[in-house]
C-alpha cells in the first residue's frame, strides 16, 4: 500500500522502546558526568557481568509474561538449581557437564510443574508460582540440609568467574541467551504463538493453536533459564546457597516491565528486557560508585525506575 500507512506501526512499538532507550542513555550520561569511575572499560565489563544473572532470569520470564503469565518462583528456583548443581560439582567427582545439565534440568522440571498446574490445573499463575516459590525454597533447604554447598571444582567456578576469549563467561552466556531468545520470539512459529496466546487466548484457540503446549513451553524455557542462572550464581559465589536469590524475581520482572513488555501479555521484546536489565544494573552500580548512603539508595533507585518508565510513556504519547 502507500507509504504513509507503513509508518503507522512505528509509534506504539518502536517509539516506546526508543523512549526507554533514551531514558537509559540519560542515566548513563548523568553517571558519566558525576563520577569518573562509571564510564571506564572495566566498569562497563563489571556492570555487564553483574547484570548477567538478572538478565538471564529476566529473559526467561519475558517468555512467560508475553504468554500472559507470571513467574514468582524464579528466586527460589535459582537457589534450588544452584544447590543441586553444586552438589555434583565437587572437585574430582563428576565431569562439568553433569552439574550443568542437572541444574538446568531441575529448572526445566520446576517450570514444567508450574506450566502444567497452570494449564491443566487451571490455577492462576500468580498462585501457582507463589506456591512454587516457597516449595522450591523448601526443597533447596532440604536438599542442602540448610547449609551452603561448598568446595566446588575450579572448572565449575569458572562458569561464574572465568573468562573465555578475554570475555567473562557469564557475559558470554547472557549474550547467547539474548540471541537465541530473540530469534525464537521473532522468527519462529512457537515465538509467534507465544505472542498470540498472551494477546488473545480465545482467538489463539480459535486459530487452532494448542495453547496449553505454548504456555508450557514458555514456563519450561523460563525454568530452564532460571536453572542456568542458578548455576552461574553458584559458580560466581563458589557455593550453592540455599538462601540465595531472595526477591530476585521482582528485579527480573521489573526489568521486563521497564522494557515495555505488558504484564497483560501479548506484547514485548527481548531488546526491551535487555534495556530494562541494563537500567537496573547501571543504577545499582552508579549509586554505589556515587557513594550514596544505603537508605537513600533505595529511595533514589525506586524514584529513578518509576521516572524512567514515566519518561518513556510520556514520550510514547
Amino acid at each position: 500500500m502507500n507509504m504513509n500507512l507503513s509508518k503507522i506501526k512505528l509509534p506504539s512499538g518502536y517509539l516506546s522502546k526508543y523512549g526507554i532507550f533514551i531514558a537509559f542513555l540519560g542515566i548513563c550520561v548523568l553517571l558519566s558526568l558525576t563520577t569518573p569511575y562509571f564510564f571506564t572499560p572495566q566498569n562497563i565489563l563489571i556492570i555487564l557481568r553483574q547484570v548477567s544473572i538478572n538478565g538471564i532470569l529476566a529473559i526467561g520470564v519475558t517468555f512467560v509474561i508475553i504468554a500472559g503469565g507470571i513467574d514468582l518462583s524464579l528466586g527460589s528456583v535459582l537457589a534450588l538449581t544452584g544447590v543441586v548443581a553444586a552438589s555434583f560439582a565437587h572437585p574430582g567427582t563428576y565431569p562439568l557437564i553433569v552439574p550443568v545439565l542437572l541444574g538446568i534440568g531441575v529448572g526445566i522440571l520446576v517450570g514444567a510443574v508450574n506450566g502444567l498446574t497452570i494449564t491443566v490445573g487451571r490455577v492462576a499463575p500468580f498462585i501457582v508460582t507463589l506456591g512454587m516459590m516457597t516449595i522450591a525454597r523448601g526443597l533447596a533447604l532440604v536438599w542442602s540440609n540448610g547449609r551452603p554447598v561448598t568446595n566446588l571444582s575450579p572448572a565449575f567456578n569458572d562458569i561464574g568467574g572465568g573468562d573465555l576469549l578475554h570475555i567473562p563467561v557469564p557475559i558470554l552466556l547472557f549474550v547467547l541467551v539474548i540471541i537465541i531468545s530473540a530469534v525464537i520470539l521473532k522468527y519462529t512459529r512457537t515465538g509467534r504463538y507465544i505472542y498470540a496466546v498472551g494477546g488473545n487466548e480465545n482467538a489463539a484457540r480459535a486459530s487452532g493453536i494448542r495453547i496449553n503446549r505454548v504456555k508450557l513451553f514458555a514456563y519450561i524455557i523460563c525454568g530452564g533459564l532460571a536453572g542456568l542462572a542458578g548455576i552461574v550464581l553458584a559458580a560466581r559465589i563458589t557455593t550453592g546457597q540455599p538462601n540465595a536469590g531472595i526477591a530476585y524475581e521482582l528485579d527480573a520482572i521489573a526489568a521486563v516491565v521497564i522494557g515495555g513488555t505488558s504484564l497483560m501479555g501479548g506484547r514485548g521484546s527481548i531488546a526491551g528486557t535487555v534495556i530494562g536489565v541494563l537500567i537496573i544494573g547501571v543504577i545499582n552500580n552508579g549509586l554505589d560508585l556515587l557513594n550514596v548512603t544505603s537508605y537513600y539508595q533505595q529511595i533514589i533507585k525506586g524514584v529513578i525506575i518509576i521516572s524512567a518508565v514515566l519518561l518513556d510513556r510520556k514520550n510514547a504519547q
Partner: protein
Amino acid sequence: NPGANQDGGKSIVVGASMLSLQSEFVVNVKDAMENYAGENGVKLIVNDAQRTADKQVQQIETFISQKVDAIILNPCEVEASSPAVEKAKAAGIPVINVNSETSATPDGFVGSDDEESGTIAMEQIAKLLGGKGNIVIIDGYMGQAAQIKRAIGAKRILEKYPDINVLAEQTAEWDRAKAMSLMENWIQSYGDKINAVFAHNDEMGMGALQALEQAKLKDKVVVVSIDAIADALQAVKDGRLDATVYQDAKGQGEGAVDMAVKLARKEPVENKSVFIPFQLVTKENIASFLK
C-alpha cells in the same frame, strides 16, 4: 588528622560492604566505623549488601574500579562471600573482615566467632534450668551464616546435657512479629511444658517474650537470645529477658577501620586477627552495658 597528612595530603579511602543495614547490630558497627573514620580523617564508603552474597561480590568489584585504598568486608556468608575477598586481594587492595569470617583468608580480621554466641546463650539456659528441662529454639533465616553458626554452638552445649529436651525448632526469619506468632502457636501445643526459649537473635527473643507475657507464662519460662540490642538490654534490666549475649560493635568497628588504615599505609600490624569475645549479659552485670 592522621589520615590526611601522612599520605601526602591525600586522605585514605576505605570501602565497606556491610551484611545488612537493616540489622540493628550491623548498624551499630557501621556507626562505630563512621565515627572512628571521621575522627581520623579517613573517607569511608559504606555499602549495604542486603544479606545477598552476590550483591556483596558486586560491591567489592565496584570498590576495585573506584580504586579504594582498603576494603572492609562484613561478610554475608562464609563461602559465598569468599570471591569478594579473593577479588580484592587479586587487585592488590588490602581487605579486612569485620564481625565474621569467610573461608578465604583476608589480610586482616576483627570480629568474633558466632558459634561462641550460641554456646554462651545455651550454656546460660542450661544453667538456669539446672541441666534439665524442655526448650524450644527459634532459628534465624535458614541457611544464613549466623543462623548456621549459632545453631552449631547451641547444639554443642545441648550434647553435654542429655536431660535438656528440644521440643521444637522453627525459623522466624530474624523477625519479631513472626517469632511472636510462632511462640503463640507453640504455647497452644506445648503450653506449660516449655521451660526455656532460645532465640537466634534478640528481635525474635523479644517476640517470644511478648507472646509468653500475653499468655501469662513468662515467670515460668526462661528466654535467652543474642545481640544485646537496646530493647533487649532494657528488657534484661527490667527482669523480663533472662539473658542476652553482647557483641562489641564499637570495638569491632573501630578495630576494623584502624587495621584498614594501617594496611593501606603498609604499616606493620602486630595482630592481624583480632578476636573480640562475646559476653553474657544478665541482670547482674547489666549496668556495664547500659550507657
